[in-house]
């Protein structure tokens, strides 16, 4: 896979940043945050990838018989998914509540806090 996958992770991060900076809808903004997080999955999995290796599951595999991909980064990515799900759910709940109270989803229409 080489360097391309790292570039892809960086590209996803920048796309997410662009989306967040220009966002006119909070649901879209929370989605962009998930894209930023997806870039971390790509990077983590790319770090653990090995050519010709298989999954580190030993139920049908004798230890040492084949090269394996790194299970640590997969565990990290899984933990990351859990963390991301919590944060996304919380932010979306706040967004729904905001829509109820303010009847807008445009972050640029929120002017209660400034200076």
């Amino acid at each position, binding site marked *: 896979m080489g360097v391309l996958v790292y570039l892809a*992770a960086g590209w996803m*991060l920048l796309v*997410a*940043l662009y989306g*967040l*900076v*220009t*966002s006119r809808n*909070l649901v879209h*903004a*929370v989605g962009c*945050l998930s894209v*930023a*997080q997806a*870039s*971390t999955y790509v*990077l*983590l999995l790319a*770090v653990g990838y090995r050519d010709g290796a298989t999954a580190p599951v030993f139920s049908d595999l004798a230890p040492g018989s084949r090269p394996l991909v790194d299970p*640590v*980064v997969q565990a*990290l990515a899984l*933990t*990351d998914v859990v*963390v991301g799900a*919590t*944060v996304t759910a*919380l*932010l979306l709940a*706040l*967004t729904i*509540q*905001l829509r109820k*109270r*303010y009847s807008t989803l445009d*972050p*640029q229409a*929120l*002017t*209660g*806090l*400034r*200076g």
Partner: protein
Amino acid sequence: MTQADLLPWAVAIPLLGAPVLAVAGRVLPRLGCDVLATAAAAGDVACLALLWSRIHGVSTARLGGWPARVGIVLAADRVGAGLALLVAVLVLAVLVYSWRYFDEPSGERAGLFPAMVLVFEAGMVGFALTGDLFNAFVFFELMGASAYALTGYRIEDPRPLQGALTFGVVNSFAAYLSLLGIGLLYARTGQLDLAAIGRGLAGRPPDLLVVTAFALVVTAMLVKAAVAPFHFWLPDAHAVAPTPVCMLMSGAMVELGVYGAARIYWTVFSGAGGVPHDAFRHTFTAFGVATALLGAVMCWQQRHLKRLLAFSTIAHVGLFVTALAALTPDGTAGAAVYVAAHGCVKAALFGLTGVLLDRYGSVDEHGLHGRARQLRLVGVLFTVGGLALAGLPPFGTGLGKALSEEAVSSSAGAWLTAVYVAVSAVTGGAVLRVALRVFWGVGPRPAEDHDDDQTTGEGEEPEIRGPLRGLPVMMTAVPGALLVLGAVPGCVPAVAHAITDGARALADPALYRRAVLGPPAEVRLPGAPVSSAWTVEGVALGCVSAAAAILLGAGSALRPLPAGRLLRLGVRALRRLHSGHLGDYLAWLAVGVAVLCAALAAQA
């Protein structure tokens, strides 16, 4: 119990207490919830106090019995354990403070607020005690998620929702940046333990990957610490969060960001193959001074009391970062004392602001002019808090400021001392100005200016229903006790000595590495102790900044200070930058990361 037994309990007690409270809150009466929550918080304070008093170098606990290269290690020196203790003390104070604070017919929700505070505590304590980089990320997000939820606690009001969303998106985005950095470090070294990564980096000369990884990881810490230009979320979140939550965020959470940056630099990147000391010193001194000055200027401009205190926190964070950036044991020691005392004093000031919000439903300096005359005790405490913030001896803030000044002036030049004095005087002066106007009605009522670029603080929803009841005793007793605690490091030499002595361990990565990667045994701290006593110069500078604060506060309360047109334009431009728009804040975050990367890469 040994330290290795106490370490996991420090995280486990609040983590176990939270679900118990959330479930028991459905059946228990209000009093039962309060007793449970206070017991959990007090238990954690006792656990951490025991731990803190017993640590002499670095104590470790290998979770599940796995060594550091495989498993996760909790590692505490005096600074980490001390910060965790500060967190636990403030959580206890906050829970006692809010005994009657959310005194609404909450039904099933009675145990929910203290339960969330305990989860928040678990995240903060875990972050301070962990020795594993990925684990630190998880705790970072745990304290983040509970802080977002607590900020938006009052979901009936639109502004808390806006503040919580901004806070959440900016902090989580920064956390993902740090995870990218962690991934890069793992790719290079195959390790996640702080000490093991540090050892792994030492093999090769530093290159762009190491610098990028450092910039990414430290960005999350700087966002949490609210260092300019990453600070925009903080005043918005503080302006809208319930007062007890502000006490925790300003008093401890923000400081944990500063600690995280220092811990990661010292343990991972300070050796061979990391980021050179000079590069870190110059870059972070610049960031620190810019943050301190910006925070002070913006603090002076505020009329919304919580925003004023929030900007004062930003200004002080700048001072902490500057002291840590000296990269000497003295600087670290100064910052440690400063953080400990500042946390107590700032939490006390927020608590007293909560009294105003409770009584008058407003935190607007102009609207409250002269209205709080009958709250004499609160006024006196608020004034004392302002003086402590300005660094008046014998408060711990004064001692921390004096030690920091000494450290930075010997490493970077005497001009930095002027920054410390000026920033302390302006932030203290702003608080004194508020105290004189609100509690004593000094000076004319400020003219109403219809400036769209500011948050006034009028028309706040009172955080409690039924203001007819008397003022709960705890709402003044707790801030009073916190102010006394803020004076302890400055008045009791043994405490100051314990804090500064422990700070040497933070600045000694070899010690940490030996403790975490070596055979399991307590590693003791070698070398000469750093000074922790008042000096004549320190007392004099503390008195100067306190006197300047009094002059500024009294002067501006009596008569609006004259300001040139250019100055007004400059201040106006600064205020416009704090636009409240999520997109702007993230754009500034991107600029900050770019500047950080460029500055470090140019010097590495």
